[in-house]
């Protein structure tokens, strides 16, 4: 490049950056910026990574992205990006990008033990179909499954959901979002009767108190953290509290740091609720009008696979797995649950852990009584070097901030609360504190559940790609919801099975016991990211199952696969994501995918062409349908109804589910594309705009029930940077459930928690239901009492340290994409184990020593770090999970919240010794 060209570029980039940062520029400088950018084609995009949903501007030239900048027009990030976000475009250009289907072959045909051979799409789909038919014939609809994703675009998730639930009649699709925010969903459902946060990111600028519950925002939601820090620096009255089990980067920006023991957040939240009552700070007007009190059973297990015969358990882990059925209460649990220490409790409510009933305020108050400052400080203090008095002072200060009438309070959380054996409870408890104070659903006041993935909200939750969900807060067990969905989808009544499918961990267990024989993975990396991985890898490699993995790079799941399908990545396809503040953002395909790679959506549609309705819509054998009022084991034939609707048994699923007459009206090309390509539509070749048609098919689900989305073209407009739902009369949503802001609230109500799910419950006392008659509670939220519960596995003499895992700033999840960006890889090349210097010394270890990190379930080698960005309290170690060379999930326990089925990655017991 010539010097003058380089200087020209620099002047333009400088001027453009200055303008983005809000500097006033001379006309000459402005025109320099415009000149530089003139030769590139710019378009808006959204970040591929976390749930914040930052807006980006991408420049393309000659079929590839050449420059990227933060989008100043986007209210989420106003031009800012984090270091990961900054490399969105580069993740597409790694050297080992997969561009051709690869299948395990021996002697020219598929072989489970063969090596990966490049094959054509035709060969790939042939084998995939053959294996699918074999599994379906042998096991029925529940013998096939899909590991879906919170990184699916809305349309991708919608298509796969429909293919499985309406086409295959199998609710066997569940996203990795299960391991990310299922506890948040369960908490929203039980508390409000509808999913997703009431607030939005403007809460940051409206509030004066921000409390982080086990959420290291400084690393994990960096751009939101920049907004938090801006707010704090500009306003001396603002306070930030960081609650964590170890000191992390968010502590640097916090006024108050509380280091607590694993699971003791349950106790701290009860202390806060107790304190609100003790200090007479309950907002009675709000509580009486808008809430009721509730509780549920405590004996709900730990989400492990109950295995009394030891069939699926390593001998080393048997003692912990046994607790799934029976547990002796420790001293703190006994106090917190009003029982006797050592009492053995059979976990009898494992079958219905989410059952709950209303209680009186007097009972609620009585339940909180044990959670005094003294008791909670003893349970919760997480740093040996801190005095109990200092810890108590901090808890009091936290309570002071919450109850202060002059203060607005926002609570933020993600994985620390959600990935928790009592994650649903912890979510409910945070709402309880906010509801007691009436600090909810107002600008700057509210409990705000953040998300980890770019479309955990948009795709996993709103589209309902869980095994128990249908679009827009509808659920499989509800006959009216199934009926509505069948009508929208124009499929016969009773096509959708009434039985909830397997959740994410259960699909792993199904592969283990052979009840699932065929699985398709899209946009996630299950064998890298699911805990207790040694079991699942062994299960997947068993001889009689078939695993398809759609992937961009060869991560662990690709290596587990029998067939790898190369995918188009983010800006190589049309798509839409929904972020944590309910903002839906669409983007265009900007560059073509490489080689023979094709989008996940094309793959779903192309696969659907290989089947007819006759293959699935006859009678199917599905066990366990009696509860839903069906003949046992029989999912009835709907072929007669289908014929009455004009379908023939020979009609392909593609034609009946996707390329419908309604959808074919959306023609490709479309002016909204501004002349650009769409490889999905072009590869299908039948002239319809797939992403637009599926969007338009999907949006009616949420309209009129508070989940309204706008029409497709609106989102693609140059002046729109996503819209928060509900979009009503062209206006995007702000604060839900608040009459002042939410058109769905009845006039004069003030507040109304109008969600419809779980809104008729029996009543009882703290221990049981006393009146089984369900009573409706329209418009009300529930304030739950949930007790302290000890972690199922705790350090002992052998495994003597707590272990926690999560992300680092520079890498995304399993590193499949970010480790392809050389600068991100170099800045954090390998996972390290953060350990307290005393714990290291006691084990004869120094910084950078290679050690074994070992649990009951597996071990990995890793290097020791005693300094750096995290400071561990004595007794606790942390390592991130992104690095497949340090396969952390071999070590992690697969305990989970029994209500949400979300795994607990944040606590297990390990030992560390020199390698």
């Amino acid at each position, binding site marked *: 490049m010539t010097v003058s060209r380089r200087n020209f570029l620099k002047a333009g980039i400088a001027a453009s950056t200055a303008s983005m940062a809000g500097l006033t520029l001379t006309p000459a400088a402005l025109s320099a910026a415009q000149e530089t950018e003139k030769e590139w084609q710019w378009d808006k995009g959204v970040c591929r990574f976390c749930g914040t949903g930052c807006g980006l501007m991408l420049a393309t030239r000659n079929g590839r992205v050449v420059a990227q*900048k933060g989008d100043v027009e986007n209210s989420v990030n106003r031009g800012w990006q984090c270091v990961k976000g900054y490399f969105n475009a580069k993740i597409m250009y790694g050297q080992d990008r997969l561009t051709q289907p690869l299948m395990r072959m021996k002697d020219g045909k598929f072989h489970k033990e063969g090596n990966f051979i490049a094959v054509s799409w035709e060969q790939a789909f042939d084998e995939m179909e053959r294996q699918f038919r074999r599994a379906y014939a042998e096991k029925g609809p529940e013998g096939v499954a899909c590991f879906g994703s919170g990184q699916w675009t809305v349309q991708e998730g919608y298509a796969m959901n429909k293919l499985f639930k309406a086409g295959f009649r199998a609710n066997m699709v569940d996203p990795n979002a299960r391991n990310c925010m299922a506890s948040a969903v369960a908490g929203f459902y039980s508390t409000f009767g509808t999913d997703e946060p009431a607030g939005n990111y403007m809460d940051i600028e409206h509030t004066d108190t921000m409390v982080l519950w086990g959420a290291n925002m400084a690393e994990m939601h960096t751009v939101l953290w920049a907004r938090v820090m801006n707010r704090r620096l500009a306003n001396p009255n603002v306070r930030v509290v960081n609650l964590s089990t170890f000191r992390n980067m968010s502590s640097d920006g916090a006024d108050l740091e509380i280091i607590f023991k694993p699971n003791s957040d349950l106790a701290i939240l009860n202390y806060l609720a107790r304190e609100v009552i003790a200090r007479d700070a309950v907002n009675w007007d709000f509580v009486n009008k808008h809430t009721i009190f509730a509780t549920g059973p405590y004996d709900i297990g730990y989400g492990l696979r109950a295995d009394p015969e030891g069939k699926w358990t390593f001998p080393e882990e048997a003692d912990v797995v046994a607790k799934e059925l029976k547990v002796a209460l420790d001293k703190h649990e006994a106090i917190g649950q009003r029982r006797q220490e050592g009492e053995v409790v059979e976990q009898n409510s494992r079958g219905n852990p989410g059952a709950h009933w209303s209680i009186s305020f007097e009972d609620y108050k009585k339940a909180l009584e044990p959670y005094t400052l003294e008791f909670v400080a003893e349970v919760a203090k997480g740093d040996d070097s801190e005095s109990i008095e200092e810890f108590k002072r901090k808890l009091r200060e936290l309570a002071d901030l919450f109850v202060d009438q002059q203060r607005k309070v926002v609570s933020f959380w993600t994985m620390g609360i959600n990935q928790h054996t009592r994650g649903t409870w912890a979510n409910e408890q945070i709402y309880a504190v906010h509801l007691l104070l009436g600090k909810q659903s107002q600008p700057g006041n509210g409990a705000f559940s953040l998300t980890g993935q770019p479309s955990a909200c948009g795709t996993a939750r709103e589209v309902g790609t869980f095994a128990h969900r249908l679009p827009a807060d509808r659920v499989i067990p509800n006959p009216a919801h199934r009926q509505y969905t069948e009508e929208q989808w124009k499929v016969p009544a009773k096509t959708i099975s009434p039985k909830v499918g397997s959740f994410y961990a259960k699909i792993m267990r199904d592969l283990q016991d052979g009840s699932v024989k065929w699985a398709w993975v899209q946009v996630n990396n299950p064998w890298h990211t699911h805990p207790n991985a040694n079991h699942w890898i062994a299960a997947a490699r068993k001889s009689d199952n078939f695993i398809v993995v759609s992937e961009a790079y060869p991560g662990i799941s690709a290596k587990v696969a029998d067939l790898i399908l190369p995918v188009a990545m983010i800006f190589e396809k049309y798509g839409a994501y929904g972020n944590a503040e309910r903002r839906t953002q669409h983007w265009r395909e900007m560059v073509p995918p490489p080689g023979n790679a094709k989008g996940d959506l094309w793959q779903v549609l192309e696969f659907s062409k290989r089947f007819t309705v006759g293959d699935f819509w006859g009678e199917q054998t599905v066990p366990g349908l009696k509860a839903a009022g069906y003949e046992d084991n029989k999912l009835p034939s709907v072929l007669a109804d289908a014929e009455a609707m004009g379908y023939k048994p020979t009609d392909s699923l593609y034609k009946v589910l996707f390329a419908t007459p309604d959808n074919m009206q959306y023609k490709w090309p479309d002016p909204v594309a501004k002349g650009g390509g769409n490889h999905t539509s072009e590869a299908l070749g039948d002239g319809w705009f797939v992403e637009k048609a599926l969007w338009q098919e999907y949006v009616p689900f949420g309209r009129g029930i508070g989940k309204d989305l706008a029409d497709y073209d609106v989102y693609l407009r140059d002046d729109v940077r996503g819209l928060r739902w509900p979009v009503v009369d062209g206006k995007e949503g702000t604060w839900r459930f608040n009459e002042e802001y939410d058109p769905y609230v009845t006039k004069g109500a003030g507040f109304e928690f109008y969600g419809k799910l779980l809104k008729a419950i029996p009543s009882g006392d703290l221990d049981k239901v006393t009146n089984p008659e369900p009573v409706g509670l329209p418009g009300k939220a529930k304030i739950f009492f949930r007790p302290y519960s000890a972690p199922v596995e705790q350090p002992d003499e052998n495994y003597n340290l707590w272990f926690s895992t999560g992300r680092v700033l520079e890498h995304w999840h399993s590193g499949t994409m970010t480790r392809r960006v050389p600068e991100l890889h170099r800045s954090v090349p390998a996972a390290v184990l953060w350990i307290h210097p005393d714990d290291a010394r006691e084990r004869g270890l120094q910084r950078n020593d290679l050690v074994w990190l070992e649990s009951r379930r597996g071990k990995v080698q890793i290097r020791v770090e005693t300094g750096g960005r995290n400071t561990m309290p004595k007794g606790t170690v942390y390592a991130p999970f992104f690095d497949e060379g340090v396969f952390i999930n071999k070590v992690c326990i697969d305990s989970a919240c029994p209500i949400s089925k979300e795994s607990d990655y944040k606590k297990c017991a390990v030992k560390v010794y020199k390698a």
Partner: protein
Amino acid sequence: MNLSGIVVICQPPKLSAVSKALSELPGVEVHFEDRDQGKIIVVQEALSIAAEMNGLRRIKALPGVVLADMMYHYFEDDPEILEGLTKSRGKQPMGESDVIPPLPIR
């Protein structure tokens, strides 16, 4: 070559000192200053991308810097991307794949 547009925020009284320190860093050019807002706009040029990241870290570590972040990234001629493009953009040959390393098993 990678070019990045970086916004540096400092305490306004320290702007001159920070600006001088920035201009002395290799590969960094100061283009704009806003004294009232304490903002400085620099463009960093780096041969390798690792150097670019280290450069940002150097900027963040300067005394008086409150915040520094990249807002703009140009990488049309990035050699690593070009290499990635040549390797992956062509169709992979039919035959045994060399991109799938072995599986880590217990």
